[in-house]
């Protein structure tokens, strides 16, 4: 008669399922939901892009316009939170949002466009203005001048310096 005892226990227990789509559902504090980029804080350094395992975060640059785009495509996101972990400026966060179904693919994109800083020597944009600002703030004044030049030009300059020195 064990089988009927199980039923009795079940009846005592009552209904446990939730009317989920009709009622909201509780999620814990530490829930890892949709990542959201804080546009104000993002400097476009691309640390998150490097860390992102599924390539949900990508970095694109429009050199003509001089804008760097950080694109987050939720369709590929695995909600691991590596981006949050590596972001030096606390600019990306996982939220508790998880109902992401949509009829339009565009809804799944978050795109941050950041104006880029042009190299004063070659005129090529190579990094974002925000990043430059942040870096400059942290660096001692004597090193600042090097940061303001694009890596290529910097290479040329240092190479020139070196050859100069060798001579």
């Amino acid at each position: 008669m064990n089988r009927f005892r199980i039923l009795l226990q079940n009846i005592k227990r009552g209904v446990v399922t939730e009317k989920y789509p009709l009622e909201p559902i509780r999620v814990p504090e530490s829930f890892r939901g949709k990542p959201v980029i804080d546009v104000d804080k993002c400097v476009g350094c691309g640390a998150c892009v490097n860390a992102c395992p599924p390539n949900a975060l990508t970095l694109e640059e429009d050199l003509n316009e001089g804008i760097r785009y950080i694109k987050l495509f939720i369709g590929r996101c695995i909600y691991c939170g590596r981006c949050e972990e590596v972001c030096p400026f606390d600019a990306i966060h996982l939220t508790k949002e998880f109902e992401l179904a949509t009829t339009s693919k565009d809804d799944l994109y978050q795109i941050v466009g950041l104006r880029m800083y042009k190299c004063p020597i070659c005129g090529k944009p190579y990094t974002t203005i925000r990043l430059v600002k942040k870096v400059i703030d942290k660096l001692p004044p004597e090193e600042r001048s090097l940061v303001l030049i694009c890596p290529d030009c910097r290479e040329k300059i240092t190479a020139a310096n070196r050859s100069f020195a060798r001579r």
Partner: protein
Amino acid sequence: MQQFSDSKIGDLLKKLGVFGTTSIVTPNTILINNVDDKLYDLCRLLIEELDAYYSTSIGVDERPLNGSFAVYHVFVADKLGLYILVRLEASPSHPIVKSITPIIPGADWAEREVMDMIGVKFAGHPRPYRLILPYDWPSNIYPLRKDFDYNDKYPIKDKIDKVIHGSTEYVVDKEVLEEEYTAVPIGPYHPALHEPEYFEVYVDGEKIVDARYKGFFIHRGIEKIAETRLTYDQVPFIAERICGICGFTHSTAYCLAVENAAGINVPERANYIRSILLEIERIHSHLLWMGVAFHLLGYDTGFMIMWRIREKIMDLAEELTGNRKTYGANIVGGIRKRFDISEEKIPYIKRLLNSVKEEYLKYIDKIVSMTEIRKRTREVGILTHEDAKKYSVLGPHARASGINTDVRKYRPYAAYSEVDFKVPVRDEGDVYARIIVRHEEVLESISIISQLLDNLPKTPLRAEFDFIPEKRIGIGCTEAPRGEDLHFVITGYGNKVYRWRPRAPSYNNLASVPLMLRGEKLADAPIIIASIDPCFSCTDHVVVIDIKTGRRRKLVSR
């Protein structure tokens, strides 16, 4: 970690030195090189004298490193807590090595996989047919060779079934079975299987006369992607996605392999948290399996009850890791900061585990004692101890056949050496024994978690290390809910793995299914297949077939 100076190991090295050059690659791994014609003697020695069992074989394209192909046979000496790698070399122009399948039937699949993926042929293999690659794959292209780019594409022939039925180039694994039996296809799409696999069961009325297995329907290029595109820190996230249930154990095994290779010492706290999450995963998996088993036995109330209890475990996982699956916590060197278990959570976890245990115990005995459940599980799908050894079956499946094996106990990783637990072993070898073994493991897991929570040490979460050295071999082994989960890693250049091969337990266990099906009733086929808790995605996903991740292909169409 074991010590070099252990005299036993010294003796062992001497003993093995007869067969080839031995070296110790990591503290628990011995590599035997240059084994020529004494291979069979070596295998016999390993299996008979050292009581080791064959685990898997790995093919590596080592041409960029040393100009040859290599095949690694992994043997596990459970008693000594050692991995013994037997490395066979094959020349790049003429890649042939000796097959060990004639003496170790369990090596069948692994060797065929190497043949498919690396292109090393095995002389003396009894069934040198394709295992993984589809029949229309070009014959001279091997996806895991280094000269094969990950985004290369090859045209797939249109009329596939013609190739299957008419081709002599690729002999389909086809034994002549008497025409008088009916073939009942179980799979690829069958309500009892939750993933696409194919069992061809030959029946006489309801009685199963013979069964054949064909797998590897779903392939994602996980190994290839990891070797070409991902960095060390990104691989755990794809390793988790090998399996939908025991993902965490895969990422742990990967991390362990890399850590072993690089000699990184993981902080205590990270080890504890890894163990806690692994045990949560195990409880979850076993409860899920029990639900599925009761569903297959037609007892849906039991299914609902088990999943109801499992729901709490999922809540726990959500509370600890932020998601209902224990994904995302591992990283090489430890645990990510986000996944730390704070002091406030400990009472909650304990409370929840207690209530799970209470509720679980309230039901499970009553369900298992039901007559129809007993009748349909007792003396059904028996795998004898001898057969289990021969096929190197793993995990609860092996323990139900009387093999006392548990990675946690005999080759402790993470924090398992710090806790006290039992390894349930039963001798019946039937489906019932498998239920009971899993049942006892659930209880053990609950006790392990509470022990770990009691002495959670306060150390950092991630080890500090500079870089990972190149060309090192590492083996990471975890006890997944389904058995030993073995990851083999050769470290490479540029923050990338050179070769990574995960071997899921179902890979070994599945080969024993046709054996268990023989002589049973068709009605019991689903529960027998399910009784090994097969994870087809684990088995399949680890190999590269199709280049683009997630790309689907119909293997056989009409």
